């Protein structure tokens, strides 16, 4: 995902002289092409994220499309105050890009994990929150964000995520993308677990459960039209995210459906529990621990579906 981001921002900067990339002392090699082509539009702001975020707002107040970039917890919760006041209160078109969402940097320990920031960012007025599900969604989300009149947060994984969308498609902020259709269960995937969810749908198919999959990349604004359709069609809707179940995408959908009167469908939220991950290990180990592998997603869904079917 981060390579897709750096390639795409370099491509877009050719036609948009207002794009300025700010880095929190990471990604130097990643941005070699950008820096070579646009030497006066890349700034290493050092390990000083609060200042970097306000700088991005200052640039935006002068007409620039500032793109501050560093590791997710440092570009979000570390400088939440600056995002809230300088970016969101001014309602500025700053595109905040975080690399390493969820457990992407699992081996670096919990200081580098981020399973809280979606919850914190989505409550900020004017903020848009996008969690792309594959490298293609990263490219398309970035294009859309740089045209958007307001703050946008884009949550990346790390590198090597499989490409789900082989072709470009019409990406609209706040509009989910159907991946496969089903009848019994609908997976609404938000972000990094898209390949796992597609695999989980395959596992369920083998067990006689027909599962649809939607890439629900935008947490805010929620695609309410699509939610209405899904809750009208499927007896079980499952939200999936590599983020805490508290306040994230699943929380957003739960809030929304609570205020609706017309649906009898059930909602299951799958995400990390209210705990740090204290162990050594890679992303897959953290996913195993929190039940976010394809098999565990399928198991949880099957158990829940079986439970509600008996009633």
């Amino acid at each position: 995902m981060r390579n897709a981001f750096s390639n795409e921002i370099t491509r877009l900067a050719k036609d948009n002289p207002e794009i300025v990339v700010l880095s929190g002392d990471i990604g130097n090699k990643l941005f070699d092409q950008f820096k070579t082509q646009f030497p006066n539009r890349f700034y290493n702001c050092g390990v000083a994220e609060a200042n970097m975020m306000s700088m991005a707002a200052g640039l935006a107040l002068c007409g620039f499309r500032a793109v501050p970039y560093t590791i997710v917890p440092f570009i979000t919760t570390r400088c939440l105050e600056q995002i809230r006041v300088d970016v969101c209160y001014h309602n500025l078109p700053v595109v905040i890009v975080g690399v390493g969402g969820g457990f992407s940097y699992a081996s670096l320990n919990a200081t580098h994990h981020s399973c809280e920031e979606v919850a914190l960012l989505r409550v900020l007025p004017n903020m848009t929150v996008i969690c792309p599900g594959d490298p293609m969604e990263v490219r398309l989300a970035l294009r859309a964000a740089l045209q958007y009149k307001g703050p946008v947060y884009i949550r990346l994984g790390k590198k090597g995520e499989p490409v789900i969308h082989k072709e470009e498609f019409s990406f609209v902020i706040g509009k989910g993308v159907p991946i496969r259709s089903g009848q019994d269960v609908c997976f609404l995937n938000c972000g990094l677990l898209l390949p796992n969810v597609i695999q989980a749908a395959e596992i369920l198919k083998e067990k006689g459960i027909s599962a649809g999959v939607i890439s629900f990349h935008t947490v805010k604004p929620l695609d309410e039209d699509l939610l209405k359709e899904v809750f009208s069609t499927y007896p079980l809707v499952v939200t999936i995210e590599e983020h805490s179940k508290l306040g994230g995408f699943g929380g957003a959908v739960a809030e929304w459906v609570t205020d609706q009167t017309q649906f009898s469908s059930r909602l299951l939220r799958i995400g990390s529990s209210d705990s740090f991950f204290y162990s050594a290990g890679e992303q897959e180990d953290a996913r195993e621990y929190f039940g976010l592998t394809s098999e565990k997603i399928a198991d949880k869904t099957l158990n829940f579906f079986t439970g509600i079917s008996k009633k």
Partner: protein
Amino acid sequence: MDITKIQIQNNQSKINLAEMEQMARLIRAKIIELSYKAKTPHIGSSLSCTDILVAAYWQALEIDPTNPDNPNRDRFILSKGHAATALYATLAYRGFFPLDFLETYDKPGSTLPEHPSPHCAPGIEAATGSLGHGLSLGVGMALGAKIKDLDYRVYIVMSDGECNEGSVWEAALLAPAQKLVNLVAIVDYNKWQATGPSNQVMSLSPLAQKWTAFGWNTLEIDGHDLGTLSQVLSDVPDKSGKPVAVIANTIKGKGISFMENDNNWHYKIPNENEYKNALEELGF
């Protein structure tokens, strides 16, 4: 004399010293009137930075109140947003909006609350009130001029208490590295913060040496000397190739004998007698 009846606006960019002194008295009177009528605090903080604003708005800044969005205008950010009455009064007298508009200050539904933002009125560059934001915003703005090869300058007024914030020092480290010669950080060094002497709350002193050590061309001046302020703020970009830090030694509550250096006036609101006495001391 009723200060509300004085309808002097001075839209001239360069006025003489006597006119600046008169303007400073007028703005101080308006600050006290606004706080008295709306029952809002921070009079001492507003009075300490008044001369800085007068020198900036009537001498240094290349601005046009009839064209407040000119991309090449100089930018001024009152980062110590709690001194909003000083900024509102300055902008009104400078001609950015009618003086009558000040009558709406802090009234429900008005766009003039106790801290400023660009939503409030023309001429306000940034939302401030949460301390420690203005300098970093200014670094972004000053960098923008460099990228676009424009010659506008960026002025930030901070309080000494604001220098408690770590983000100030993040910005102070970056600006010299980027050689932002069009950036001016002014510290309204009145030696007080909300609950005590600023040099007891944190180890600010020696403040000028700190800014020098961080790579700024640092000037320590009398923050009530309108002539020196005008000269220092106008002489930007600095020939040294560094951003400029101005340590403006000021007196909290400046201009009103019974408010000067009395930190109770950080929060205190004048009663009717204090209001009348204050205006009388200012010649109104």
